[in-house]
């Protein structure tokens, strides 16, 4: 799955070859309707079960989030926020299912230095291929959503696969299948956008004037999208970035810095070579060897003289 043997690889990390590009791209997407989520964590359980992962038992510190953060074994996590809306004076329980957003322009893939450790399939899913992962954690720096986690056991990066294995055989992701309220939907990106618009209209009719679809353009759109009641303030949902994009630092490091680096090193090496073939070596002439001997002899005569005087 991780090499160009498949026609379904659109992008491959740290690879200089042109990926195959003749097949039409049918993009998929997961739509998470935050307004329908009841915070039951069935998606978390389904994710652990399908992927056969059991995270360590944690400690209760008095918040609903369990575990407290995404980990190498927890690829999706319900994040709970209690929000007092100043306009309505209502307490709103904003529950967001966090996990990889499967960006069209993935920062992790851009940052990855290991060929084929991160791939993007033609359906838009961004997948880590742990076999090729070297554990440098560059993906962590590349990601605008703070998603990848490095395992302390094997020092490899992990995150949501959007159940690429299930999707490949026509199944919906495990979380979508398990959701009891239908808050997690899965289908083609087109269908999910259409569905989202229906939901947004419904929410607006019920007083959520700023309801909208979160499909951030800064990363080229995502293949995990949210319906938010407050799409004007995504940060309310436990720090969901308002305008995510690949950090300019990462973009420069992977773009201009590479060109600058190779050019600088190449220039230094070539400058030396061309200096040698023009100016030539700087050689000591025999007269200078003699001068040195004279200089040394004079010095030792002086020294002897001083020794006699003292």
């Amino acid at each position, binding site marked *: 799955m991780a090499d160009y043997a498949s026609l379904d690889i659109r992008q491959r990390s*740290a*690879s*200089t070859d042109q990926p195959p590009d003749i097949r039409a791209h049918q993009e998929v997407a997961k739509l998470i309707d935050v307004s329908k989520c009841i915070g039951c964590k069935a998606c978390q359980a389904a994710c652990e079960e399908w992927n056969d992962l059991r995270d360590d038992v944690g400690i209760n510190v008095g918040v609903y989030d369990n575990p407290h953060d995404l980990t190498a074994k927890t690829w999706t996590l319900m994040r709970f926020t209690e929000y007092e809306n100043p306009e309505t004076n209502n307490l709103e329980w904003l529950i967001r299912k966090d996990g990889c957003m499967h960006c069209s322009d993935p920062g992790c893939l851009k940052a990855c*230095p*290991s*060929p084929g450790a991160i791939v993007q399939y033609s359906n838009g899913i961004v997948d880590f291929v742990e076999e*090729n992962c*070297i*554990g*440098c*954690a*560059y993906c*962590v*720096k590349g990601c605008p959503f*703070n998603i990848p986690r*490095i395992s302390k056991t094997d*020092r490899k990066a992990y995150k949501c696969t959007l159940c690429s294995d299930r999707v490949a055989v026509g199944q919906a992701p495990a979380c979508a299948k398990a959701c009891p309220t239908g808050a997690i939907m899965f289908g083609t990106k087109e269908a999910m956008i259409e569905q989202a618009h229906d939901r947004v209209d419904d929410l607006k009719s019920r007083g959520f004037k700023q309801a909208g679809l979160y499909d951030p353009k800064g990363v080229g759109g995502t293949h995990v999208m949210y319906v938010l009641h407050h799409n004007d303030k995504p940060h309310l949902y436990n720090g969901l970035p308002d305008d995510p994009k690949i*950090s300019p*630092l*990462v973009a*420069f*490091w992977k773009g201009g*810095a*590479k060109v*600058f*680096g*190779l050019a*600088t*090193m190449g*220039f*230094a*090496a070539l*400058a*030396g070579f061309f*200096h*040698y073939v023009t*100016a*030539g*070596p*700087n*050689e*000591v*002439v*025999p007269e*200078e*060897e*003699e*001068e*040195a*001997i004279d*200089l*040394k*002899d*004079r*010095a*030792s005569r*002086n*020294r002897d003289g001083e020794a006699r005087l003292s």
Partner: protein
Amino acid sequence: MTIHTDVRDGESRPLREVRTEVPEVIYVPRYTGLQRVNHWITAILFTLLTLSGLAMFTPFLNFLTALFGGGQATRAIHPWLGVALVVSFTFLFMRFWRLNIPNRDDVEWSKKIGDVVTNREDRLPELGKYNAGQKGVFWGQTILILVMFVTGLVIWNEYFGQATTIETQRWALLAHSLAAVIAIAIIFVHIYAGIWVRGTGRAMVRGTVTGGWAYRHHRKWLRQIAGTLPTRSGSVDKRGH
């Protein structure tokens, strides 16, 4: 002496012509054995760091990971090599920093950089143990190694991944790679200078330079130590002690 019969004319003659007059050369000690070992350990570490670092810098050089046993091993070994280099370079720094403090001659020398690169030594001021170019390499590497050490710790995920914010780590990654390419470019110049200025390699391999080399390139230094050189020119210990 081995006498051989020359197949061309059947005459007997020595295998090599023996020069009757060997030009007299004195050898001037420049580096002690310990200093040379220190230098070469640093050089080997720098080379390994360059190869393993560039492997992770651009996909075009990713094949270099094969030299270190694959990508994971390269990632694991690179920071440790860095720590070793910092230790080794610290000793070099302590030995040589005083000799690398810039002075008036360096200004004069730098102004005449055109004469430097065209081998017009006769137009340059007399210099102490190091010229401004060598001092530039010294201070350049000192600063860049310090930058790479600090930023390297920040991006060393295994031990310091949680110590700083991701934004700090992004800055560190960028600074680390830029410092590295500049340091590598400086080392290219450093190596080339050793090839270009004939007789220089001897200082780091044997510990000595010829009197002529010292006279040509670092005459002030030669004057400083001339009095301490052994009296009889023929009996100079070539090991440089």
